[in-house]
Structures are given as structure tokens and as C-alpha cells.
């Protein structure tokens, strides 16, 4: 049952002006569609330089590669991250994010003589292994978040932030959220203990 059918079934909206019940969704979604269309249009990104974009896309592709299901590059996580950088993120966060990319590429240059996106695939993977081994395994407390904002950005910190954003961008994309996960929006009941 989709949202419209649900509203009609439960609230009897079909007796009202057709489509009225969907106004909230439609208005908010129409606006979002414009934003997303803008993000997709053309080739130019709002913030990421071609080199920075290559680093983001390279890591995104290794983190969540295409397999029997679509990968992070296939759903354009780089464009969504660029949208956040361009239109939403606070300046200090944006600076720290870009500094993180710079640190990752600096590490790659010192180890392999090339920025990450131009390094050999096995070198890319081994650098990611090393960075991933330092990934925090739980979200920071409010106090830790406060402290982190004042710590220098390392390649490890940059990677942790990028991984968060890649995971978020991938799983909230429509092809994944709707196409692959497709959890019921209106479950209709709660069961506290069922088989997986």
C-alpha cells in the first residue's frame, strides 16, 4: 500500500479534492526534486575540484563497490556530498572535510608517490585498510564531538568523516532506500520478536 492508498483507506481523503491529501509530500518533494535535478545537471560540481572529486569517488567506490547491487558511484554519492558541501554544511565542517581529503592524498603521495585516485588499486586498498583500522566504532558523545572540532584534521579523521557521509549518501539515495531496502513505510503493526 502506498502513501496515497493508505491515506484514502484510513482517513477517507478520497472524498476530498483529489490530490489534496498529498500536498505536503508533493510540495516538499517537488522542491527536493528541483534541488536534486540541479545537483545532477551538467558536469560542474559546486565545491569539489576535479582532484577532490576523484578522491571522494575513489574511496566511495572502494567502500561500497558495485556488485550484484548498485554501488556508491552508481548512485552518485559524490554529487550528493558536493551538494551538502555547497548548500548546507557549516564553514568549519566544510573546511575540515576538504582538509581531510588533502591529508588522505598527502598520505598517499608520501607512500606511493601519487594522490589516492591515481595510485595502483592494491595501494589504494592498503591505505584504506590502514585508515579503516583507526575508525571509531561508536558515535562520539557530545563532549567528544566538541573536543574533535578543535583537534587537527588527520587522514584518519578525514576518512572517518568521509565514510560517514558515503554510507549516509548511499543508503538514503532513492535507488537504495526504495529499490533495495524498501522497508514498509506503513507497517501497520509492531512485533517485538520475529524471525530474521
Amino acid at each position, binding site marked *: 500500500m502506498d*502513501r496515497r492508498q*493508505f*491515506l484514502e483507506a*484510513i482517513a477517507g*481523503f478520497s472524498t*476530498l479534492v483529489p490530490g*489534496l*491529501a498529498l*500536498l*505536503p*509530500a508533493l510540495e*516538499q518533494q517537488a522542491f*527536493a526534486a528541483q*534541488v*536534486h535535478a540541479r545537483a545532477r545537471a551538467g558536469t560542474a560540481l559546486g565545491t569539489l575540484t576535479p582532484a577532490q572529486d576523484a578522491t571522494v569517488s575513489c574511496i566511495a567506490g*572502494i*567502500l*561500497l*563497490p558495485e*556488485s550484484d*547491487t548498485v*554501488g556508491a558511484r552508481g548512485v552518485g554519492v559524490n554529487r*550528493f556530498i558536493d*551538494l*551538502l558541501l555547497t*548548500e*548546507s*554544511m*557549516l564553514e568549519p*565542517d566544510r573546511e575540515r572535510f576538504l582538509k581531510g581529503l588533502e591529508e588522505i592524498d598527502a598520505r598517499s603521495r608520501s607512500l606511493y608517490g601519487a594522490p589516492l585516485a591515481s595510485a595502483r588499486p592494491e595501494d589504494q586498498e592498503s591505505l584504506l585498510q590502514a585508515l*579503516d*583500522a583507526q*575508525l571509531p*566504532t561508536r*558515535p562520539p*558523545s*557530545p*563532549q567528544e564531538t566538541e573536543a574533535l572540532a578543535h583537534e587537527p584534521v588527520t587522514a584518519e579523521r578525514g576518512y572517518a568523516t568521509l*565514510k560517514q557521509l558515503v*554510507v*549516509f*549518501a548511499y*543508503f*538514503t*539515495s*532513492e535507488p537504495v*532506500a*526504495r529499490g*533495495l531496502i524498501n522497508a514498509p*513505510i*506503513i*507497517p501497520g*503493526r*509492531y*512485533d*517485538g*520478536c*520475529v*524471525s*530474521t
Partner: protein
Amino acid sequence: MAASAPESQSGEYDAIVVGSGISGGWAAKELTEQGLRTLLLEAGPPIVPQRDYVEHVQAYSLSFRGYGNQRLLKERQPIQSQTGACDEWVSKFFVDDRDNPYDNDPDKPFLWIRGRHVGGRSIMWGRQVYRWSDLDFEANAREGIGVDWPIRYADIAPWYSHVEKFIGVSGQQEGLAQLPDGEFLPPMELNCAEVRVRDAMAHRWGRERVMTIGRAAILTRPHLGRAACHYCGPCWRGCITSSYFSSNGVTLPAAAATRRLTLRPNSVVAEVLYDARRGRASGVRAVDGETGKQLEFRARVVFLCASALESARILLNSKSARFPTGLGNSSDQLGRNVMDHPFGAGAEGTIPGMADRKTFGHRPNGIYVPRFRNVTEKHPRFVRGYGFQGGAGRAGWERGAYTRGFGAEFKRALLKDLGPWQMWLGGWGECLPRADNRVTLHPTLRDKWGVPALHIDCTWGPNERELLKDMQISAAETLEAAGATDIRTFNDDLKPGFCIHEMGTARMGWDAKTSVLNRWNQAHDVPNVFVTDGACMTSSANQNPSMTYMALTARACHYAVQKLKVGEL
């Protein structure tokens, strides 16, 4: 202040209710149902559920998919956006901090989270509803703290029933003296991990420390024409089926059905007008929120339900020769005794096993552990106590940001598998009333409508800090008893106000010299003024307070109507 003459409403009303949130909606319903022509003034705009509720809109349909426009939030809502509910979907339900300023000393941070629209915070509230007991109503008198409550459980119990029967409360009967049972709809289910923790607690503590399902103003079956919950999850974004209690879906339709309700949105009440000759309030002065035009409304009785701090602000701003420091403030208690529940401290851990079990549907409710400190035994370091709220679950893809690994198998696991069962318990503690925790009118700062803003002085005291420590210890001990692993305690060091349970600024009491309101929520000094929101609270208990506001409001309305009928108001 505009120099033009105020618009005087020609329509005469029996009652004016200020604020349409949880308390104001109840006042409107009770007063209109008992025959009073009632004007309900709401500072903010109307809400149209079909347009404004977005609980079924998915993240991919939003511009930033739930990440929000951080720049805009920082610019317009730096305070409101600190609460998780003020998200990309419904930041519109929270006030603009620039238009609605207040002030505090830098070393006394206070977070004032508000909704200004028809229905107020009844749209975004947490929906947890608990009765108080005499353990709570007698505490001040027993310990010599603040002043004595002028009511006891027996005075309010029938009104709790009155409220529960109308709003619909799902919950489990437990037979505990410190948390009286109510008129419950069927309880929601505990999940597998919660059942395990509950059983382990019963084994270790018997009936001393009990876990039950949260008591929530959410329907588990159809009730008085409203549909049962469909378990979509994010209640705070509105509910098109009105399956949880909100003014918009429950009390305001009932009031409207009497044809005696006039709801006027965009009406920012600035002061209560006082008629010195009669010794009564004559009405209110307001500002039209859209045009800035000055308005005056008159009625025989005024109910302030604007929220604890807003009602105090209106009264403090209602100055006259008789009341130079604010209407009804002969006790000097108006604006004092601000309380909020200390919370954000507890523990979390992993409940091992049950890898082949999961939940289905989004239960908009958690577990509850009624207060167990200072119930039968006296704690050496603090008075009063706290209840735990919390819950267990298995994380989906969200765990990916904090799970090591990458590649095709990592992606497959996030798409198909769930994380381990994890459970958290956090305390909601009682706050003691202290006279120096107070709000005053700022000498120069005004809101967008020219109404003087508040200066807020509020800090946690030593008792609240002890509670926050003990919450962590006892939560960890509880999880440990259930065999949890990786137990971690937390104290998020949350500031006063952030629990959004602010109360106490016009307390009830026996004595006009030490309290603002009498045992009927009636101003000692001005008998046709009633305050029935959180301002009236003499102590805070540790239970979520909204249902107590509803019950006190209904009780005060019945009293006021009786007195009007016999010509005593």
C-alpha cells in the same frame, strides 16, 4: 509599540484561553463543553495536517535527505536545532530563534525549545504519560523543600481518569504505589532483548526495580473515532490519523464541535489587563502576529496556558499600580522556582544472542522503569529519584559509519544484516525548586512583536548532579544483571531546559504569601485568572509532566465554571 488605538473585539466571550498546546487545548475543550463561549488565542499560525504533517515522507524526497540545511538552522534556529526533533522534516514546528529571543548569562546556559503554532508542542511531544503519586505530592512538605502542594493524589486521581479515557493511553498495569496505574488501552509489546532485561531485573530486584512498557498517549486500538497507531515511527512529524494525542487531533476538534469556540491564530498575547476597580482581570492585550496591529479582548475569566515560561512572561509584563512587578505577584514568587528534569545520563550495552530475531514495525515508545530510589529506603546522597526510559534494538545500515570494513561483503552486510541487540537506559530525574532559578523581564530585549523577552537564570543544584551520577551507576548495574556486554555509561551534560519539561514559575500553594496560585490553579491575587500549564507546578517529580497539566487544567476548568455559575467570579 504601535501608537494606533487597539482593535477592540466587539464579540464578548465568557473565557479567554491563551495558548493552544497541551494545556490550552484541554482548557478550550472543557470550557466550551460546559457552555462557555471561549476565545482561544494562539501566538503562531494555523496547522493544516494535510499540508503540514510529513511523517511518511522519506529521506530521499528531501533536499538534504534529513541532513538538513545546517547553514539555515545555524542562522535561524541555533537553539531549537539542538534537539533532534527539529530536523529537516519539521524544523518548521520549532520557533525562529531570531524572532523569539531570550537571554541568559554565559555561565548559565538554558535551552528553551518552543513550538508556536496551533497545537504548540502537542505535535512534537514525547507522548509519555505517567500519573504522579503521593510520594510526589507530599515530598516538599515531608522534606521542608519549597512549599507544600495544596493537593494530594486523591484530588487529582479522578481527573487523571477523565483525561486518560478521552486521550487514550496504552500501558501495562503494574500495581506500584509510586506510579499509580491508569485507564489503559492494551500495552505495546516489549521486544526480545527488553523481555530478557525485564526478567533479569525481576529475578534480581523483585518488585523493587521493575521494567514495564512506556505508558504512551498512543492508541493501540481504535478509540473514540480515532484510528489505531500504524507504527510508521516518527510521531513528531505529525500524525495524519491522529493516533497519538495532540490538541489538533483530539481536544480542539471536541471544542470546535460545541460551536462555542473561536480560535484566533497569530495572536501574540502581551499582557493580561487588570481592572483595579473590580479587582479582576478584564481581558488581554495582544499583537496580531501578521500585521503587528494592537488587539484587545475581554472576557469574564482568563486561562493562561501559554507554557511555563511564556505564561510567566505574560504575567510579569502585566504591570499596574496594584501589581507593579507583574499581575498576581504579591508573593514575589512569579517567575521563580524554574525546574526541568535532569536527564541524558545512563548506560548502554550489548545484549548477546538472539541473532535470528528482529522487530517488525516502528514502535513509537520505549520501556519505563519507575522510580526505585527513596521509595522505601533513604538514599545517603540525594533526595527524590528518577525513572529510566530507554529501549533495545538492532541497528540497520546506520551502523556502517562506525563499523570497520569495506567492499562488496561490507555493503551486503549493511543491506541485509542487522547489528547486535543493543539496549540503553537513561534517567529522567526530579529537579528541586529553588527560588534563585528564575525568569525576569529583560530590560531592553524584545521579540519580533515588541513583547519584552525573558532573562533566564537556571542551573542544576547539587541534588540534580547527584542524581545524574547515580543514573549512570544504576543503569550499568541493571544492564549487567541482564548479562549485557560492552557496557558504557554516559552523561551528556545536558543543560537545563533541554528536557523540554520547564515548569514551576507560578507555583500552587496554600498560602498567598508564598505562592502564586491556589489549589484550583487560580491566582491568589486575581480570582478570575487561572494558570494551568507547567507554571503551576510546586515540585517536578520525575515523571513526564504533560498528563498532570491536562488533569489540572480539566479540574481548574470545572471549578471556574462552577464559580461563574454561582456568580463568584
